[in-house]
């Protein structure tokens, strides 16, 4: 098999990789924002509860979560497709990390911002919506880009729950023809071509954010 044929075979799985990534982002961003904001503003037992949820998703390895949900949910009578489980688990795992950057960005804001908003007669929710979140989100963007790369790379794990993504197709090809060097170099190259531009973008944003005296990397 020529190298071009290998690359063509690997990119047969691009659709699944892309779908899992996009669905994962749709889980990750709302979860990160909601959990981060709730963790920052809640106190006592509520804070303990939201922290437990975040830690469950964040402290467990993605692959272990993936296997646990894929194999254990049917035992509880919940039948979901592989794509649904993969996107949910990877998305909420990355979202758990994201929630910590949301919380940290909110904590880093000057308290005067909130006090000025309240003094102007805005409600607490309006202060959050119009004053705190816009500034926090601007500070979080470089971190979110880095987490997006983690998500794209994480989608290679769904090949282990039999979804036909790029990694899965590479393994299919390797069963048909013995050329490990070509196939696995091709697979590395396939992911590199997707993630490398995002890595460069992330670093660029991080550097300009640091120059503005703004965000730290969390």
């Amino acid at each position, binding site marked *: 098999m020529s190298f071009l044929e290998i690359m063509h075979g690997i990119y047969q799985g691009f659709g699944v990789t892309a779908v899992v990534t996009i669905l994962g982002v749709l889980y990750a961003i709302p979860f990160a924002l909601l959990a981060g904001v709730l963790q920052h503003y809640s106190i006592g037992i509520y804070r303990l509860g939201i922290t437990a949820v975040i830690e469950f998703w964040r402290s467990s390895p993605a692959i272990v979560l993936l296997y646990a949900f894929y*194999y254990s949910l049917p035992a509880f009578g919940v039948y979901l497709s592989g794509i649904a489980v993969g996107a949910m688990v990877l998305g909420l795992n990355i979202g758990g990390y994201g929630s910590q950057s949301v919380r940290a960005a909110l904590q880093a804001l000057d308290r005067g911002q909130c006090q000025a908003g309240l003094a102007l007669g805005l409600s607490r929710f309006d202060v959050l919506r119009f004053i705190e979140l816009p500034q926090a989100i601007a500070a979080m963007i470089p971190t979110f880009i880095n987490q997006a790369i983690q998500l794209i790379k994480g989608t290679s794990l769904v090949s282990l729950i039999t979804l036909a993504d790029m990694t899965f197709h590479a393994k299919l090809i390797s069963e048909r023809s013995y050329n490990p060097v070509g196939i696995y170099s091709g697979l590395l190259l396939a992911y590199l071509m997707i993630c490398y531009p995002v890595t460069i973008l992330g670093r660029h944003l991080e550097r300009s954010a640091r120059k503005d005296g703004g965000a730290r990397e969390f």
Partner: protein
Amino acid sequence: MGALVNFDVAFAIRIAPLVLEGVGHTILVALLSFFAATIIGFFWEMLRRSYWLMRPITQFIIDAIRSTPLLVQIYFLFFVLPYYGVTLPALFVGVFGLSIYYSGYISEVFKAGIDAVPVGQSEAAQSLGLNSRDTVVFVIMPQMLRNIAAPLGSYLISILKSTPLLAVIAVPEMQGSAFDVAAETYRYAEPMFVTEVLFLILALIAVALVTGLERHLGLSTPFH
């Protein structure tokens, strides 16, 4: 409703010790990979600073390592090394893969740690007559160690959480033990669920240990 739930709690508790048999390998792999990744990461950073032409080359290598999935890197090593006649035990291939992958991240930790030492420190050392090696060893390094300890701690936890990936190349760590149990009993729900619970506990213990160590050293980093 009861018929829908097919989760045998007694069976789950019974197999927990079997899954836990892999914990020794999990911790061993994590520690070995952490030390190797730190050494390789330091090597990348020294290479990046060594000579102007090495900077973009090393930077590309680091970015390439960080832009490809760990799973794919492990497959690459596991299938390509034997092709060239290098046959290593799976455990070493796994440690090798983990340390290469995390060396890319740890090199950035060293970079930030060194950059955070004020330029005046090395200038002062030079004006006092220290040569460049002594400046690095006695002035820059001790201050850098303080800066890197906390981020290195969080990468140790990340590495611990990446070890279950090595089950795909049959390293007998906890996820691998869980698959052994599943293959013997034809039940997957309980072993996978038990592994999740055990790994969560292990990770939380590791976070507590690293946080405790940081507090003991007087470092402040609330993030992992």
